């Protein structure tokens, strides 16, 4: 169910114009330490490419 929720959420956020790469979903199992590090590296690279978030961000 969670999978379905996030599948729709990701598409929807992208649809309204929030860059899809800002919200990332994945699966990492308990034995995948290397994968975890790679995911973080990958996510960081993707988000870095997008630059700082501005959309939807509440200014205090």
């Amino acid at each position, binding site marked *: 169910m969670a999978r379905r929720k996030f599948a729709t959420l990701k598409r929807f956020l992208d649809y309204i114009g929030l860059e899809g790469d800002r919200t990332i979903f994945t699966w990492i199992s308990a034995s995948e*330490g290397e994968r975890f590090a790679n995911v973080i590296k990958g996510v960081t690279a993707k988000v*870095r490419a997008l630059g700082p978030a501005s959309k939807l961000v509440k200014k205090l």
Partner: protein
Amino acid sequence: MAENLANKEWVPKIVAIVCNWCTYAGADLAGISRIQYPPNVRIIRVPCTGRINPFYVAKALQTGADGVLVSG
């Protein structure tokens, strides 16, 4: 994130909402294996991926996260 990093090169702020049994354990394993990765992630542990309310993603973005990772 604290101010004294502000003058450095911009580093994205990423929130990871992760399942205790899978990804969180994987993250621990990365630690045990000393696999290095960027220090810009803040992990929030939940008991199961099913616990993650999609609303959290929206709130994280609204709070100023540059990226949100949801991982089960």
